[in-house]
């Protein structure tokens, strides 16, 4: 900075930024790959002025000054171009000459990310350390009176149900009278949660669908994925693979014109319909697809103009109240598919979840309740929503399950847990904990991106630029130059890897507990935690 330039309030030094570029002049070949790949243009080729002084021995010669220039990499300090720490520069550098380093100082950037009065928006999830799930352990190991089972040799049936299950008395009456029973799907307890076509790139979406189809058709694992609010590619709607897909309808109704028009041509029913009322990452706020990502294809599928931001309203505007909305939308969706497809609502984790649940127990058509906890991810949301709004999933699910158990409806209304499952990589352990706390199934989103496509985002506020479509891995971008980086076949392979290894780990958890023929839903006696208050709250054992 020149001495005659004023210092603006938002003038920052590199030291003030959360990520600092460490560049090694000796190793750099000035190939330019790092500056080309940087998704936020945080670095640029720089011309550096170098002055050196030469002083010969003795006093005869005067000191000599020499000025030269050299070229290198310069980090910008404008808040709009602050490094996000994605480290793509490091990934592409042939010599390993550059890498972002997390600042050892409290960052100052956070005070300036609201230029023009626009609060920070980003993708990713709550920038917070892992929650309670990682502290839960499985303590009820079958030892003396019964041998633990063999995860490798015994037969296992780790399936779950999605849809309204009638109580045994009503079931038998309906069987005898040949009456109508609500549709129920037998599915794998780990689901891919709602990530829209639009939030994700075409290659990522294709990879997910291919992976899910392979798991179903070649490996016999009934894995299901939810579309999120962005419609569904027309060819998929008309294909036999639709049965592996849960179509989501949310308050913006994006993509539903296309879906309704495809109804007569559908060869298969979708697995289910998810009505989204809330999302864990941005509870009480609507969906958001920022204009950067609304290209021609996305606009066509969603039935909107190109290049405009697509915020969904926080609630379904056509309805007076959520109770009425749930009842009416569930009915409408059932009718659309001739009462053959289960319909269930998804809400964000909240202290009012039980009110919604109680309402659903009295609605004979509600096919389940998905609750998305505060650690859920998103493609775009206000940072304040992500970091400070919402409810942890563990107590929400536990309270919901115990409420159902008191009503005797624990088997009738499946609970689906989401939000931060596998946040630290412990996917199977987190999922099994939630199942034993009472969930019938669990949903993952961010984990599928991280493990399935190499998403770089982290809760250390790394990358997290899904919202502007500049995803350096091509996972959440609609720019062909970026999403071409992602090979859908490879994503599909990784999705298969995730589920097959998850299945192994799940067996390694349930077999020592003596469980194999049914999913241990609500088997809370198997759980322990080293926090007394958490154990009291979750009604599990306190162990130290």
């Amino acid at each position, binding site marked *: 900075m020149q001495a005659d330039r004023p210092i603006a309030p938002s003038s920052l030094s590199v030291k003030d930024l959360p990520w600092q570029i460490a560049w090694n002049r000796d190793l750099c070949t000035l190939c330019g790959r790092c500056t080309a790949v940087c998704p936020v243009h945080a670095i640029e080729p720089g011309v550096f002025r170098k002055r050196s002084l030469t002083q010969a021995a003795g006093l005869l010669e005067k000191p000599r000054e020499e000025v030269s220039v050299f070229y290198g990499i310069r980090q910008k300090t404008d808040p709009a171009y602050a490094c996000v720490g994605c480290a793509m520069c490091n990934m592409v550098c042939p010599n390993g000459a550059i890498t972002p380093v997390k600042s050892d100082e409290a960052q100052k950037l956070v005070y300036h990310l609201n230029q023009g009065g626009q609060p920070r928006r980003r993708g990713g999830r709550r920038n917070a350390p892992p929650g309670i799930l990682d502290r839960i352990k499985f303590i009820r190991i079958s030892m003396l009176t*019964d041998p633990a089972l063999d995860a490798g040799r015994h037969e296992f049936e780790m399936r779950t149900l999605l849809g309204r299950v009638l109580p*045994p008395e009503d*079931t*038998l009456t309906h*069987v005898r009278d040949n009456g109508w029973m609500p549709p129920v799907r*037998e599915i794998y307890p780990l689901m891919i949660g709602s990530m829209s076509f639009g939030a994700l790139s075409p290659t990522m979406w294709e990879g997910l669908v291919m992976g899910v189809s392979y798991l179903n058709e070649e490996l016999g694992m009934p894995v299901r994925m939810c579309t999120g609010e962005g419609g569904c590619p027309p060819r998929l709607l008309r294909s036999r693979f639709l049965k592996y897909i849960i179509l989501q309808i949310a308050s913006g109704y994006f993509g539903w014109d296309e879906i309704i028009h495809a109804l007569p041509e559908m060869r298969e029913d979708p697995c289910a319909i998810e009505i989204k009322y809330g999302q864990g990452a941005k509870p009480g706020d609507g969906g958001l697809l920022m204009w950067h990502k609304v290209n021609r294809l996305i606009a066509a599928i969603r039935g909107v103009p190109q290049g405009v931001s697509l915020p969904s309203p926080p609630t379904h505007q056509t309805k007076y109240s959520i109770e009425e909305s749930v009842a009416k939308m569930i009915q409408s969706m059932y009718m659309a598919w001739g009462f053959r497809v289960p319909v269930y609502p998804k809400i964000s984790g909240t202290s009012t979840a039980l009110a919604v649940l109680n309402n659903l127990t009295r609605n004979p058509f509600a096919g389940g309740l998905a609750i998305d906890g505060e650690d859920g991810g998103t493609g775009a949301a206000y940072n304040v929503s992500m970091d400070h709004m919402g409810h942890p999933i563990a107590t929400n699910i536990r309270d919901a399950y115990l409420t159902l158990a008191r009503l005797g409806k624990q088997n009738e209304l499946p609970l689906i847990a989401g939000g931060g499952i596998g946040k630290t990589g412990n996917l199977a352990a987190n999922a099994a904990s939630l199942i034993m706390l009472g969930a019938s199934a669990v949903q993952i989103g961010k984990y599928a991106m991280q493990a399935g496509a190499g998403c770089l985002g982290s809760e250390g506020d790394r990358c997290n630029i899904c919202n502007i479509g500049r995803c350096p891995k091509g996972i959440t971008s609609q720019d062909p130059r970026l999403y071409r980086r992602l090979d859908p076949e490879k994503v599909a392979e990784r999705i298969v890897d995730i589920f097959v290894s998850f299945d192994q780990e799940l067996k390694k958890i349930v077999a020592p507990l*003596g469980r194999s023929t049914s999913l*241990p839903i609500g088997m809370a006696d198997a759980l322990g935690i080293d926090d007394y208050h958490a154990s009291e709250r979750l009604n599990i054992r306190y162990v130290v």
Partner: protein
Amino acid sequence: MCRLFAVTSEEPLSPMRAIHALDVMREGHDGSGVGLFLSGLAGPFEDMKDAPILSGIFTEEGLKRLDRFMMEVGFVTKYKVSIRTPKITPKGMPRRNRYLIRAYEYPDSWDGVSREERDARLMSIRLQLRRMGQENNHEDMIVYSFWPDVIMIKEIGDPLTVAGHLELDRPELLSRVILAQGRQNTNYAINLYACHPFFIQGVSTMTNGENTAFVPIREFLSSRGFPGYTGYQSDSEVFTHILHYTMRLGLPLEAYKHVITPLKDEDIPKHPDAGLLTALKRSCRFLVIDGPNMVIGCLPDKTMFMVQDRKKLRPGVVGGRPGMFAFSSEICGLDAAIPDRDKSKDFQPMHLDTAIVGPGRQEVRICRQTDPLPRLH
């Protein structure tokens, strides 16, 4: 692991027949307790088939409370077996005041009540007595059953010692159906309500092995709105209640195994009753046991059966001759009870089998889970 023995016979037998069978299987139990369920009673109870019999253990104070209570309800004692025990209690057995087996006459006010209502009232009285006995930690009343043609005895100690002490070889206890368990205790302090066999409204079962799915099953049963689904001092009590619930649903015994260990998803479509089984598996998902368990039980009509869990990790054998069949944890128990049988016809049920001996006691019928179910009524 406990040892189980059950016998059904045309000729009334002494409970000692079962006690001796348990004794030869003593390697498999630690002598920490014995439980007996007797039905098809002969002797003095033969002539009072409809009179409800109260079985339990009482202190003198408990007995007084019982008499006051029963008098208030209107029950009159019809017949009783007094088991007076010698003054010196054998090692390993607690000292008790009174083992009670008492048949009652129904109150006059019960005349004309339906069978269902009568059954509900009998159960309710048993539960109330049990609650009274547990009030203020009195433990002055322990009640096992209150039902016509059923006697239950449970006590801590080695089966043979207990039987000798209580002189079970007495003519009043002759019966045609006996369920007996030799206990392998897993708790240091033994709660008699945790001892097998378990009983509810004429249905009794006893089980080998741990029930790993106990907690979700207990929660499911407790939330059925049926007052008898309570207790659960033992994880095995749920097997009795699931059987009772299966009966309440109007399902035949053959369906019990489909409730506790349903067929795999890929096998159900091959079954002739695929529609029913799919619906049953889904709606009774919380009643799936996860073994390893072997269950022996008896229905109100004296049908006796044995089922294995899906993994078949527990021993169990059934054999005998027309007129007399026994179900046993081990073949040596069977040999001790019915030596003169065709051993080549002994049968060890596997993971799909329910072995059933009907009230006629003519044969062992094997119902495989892949067989069609009897038609529902």
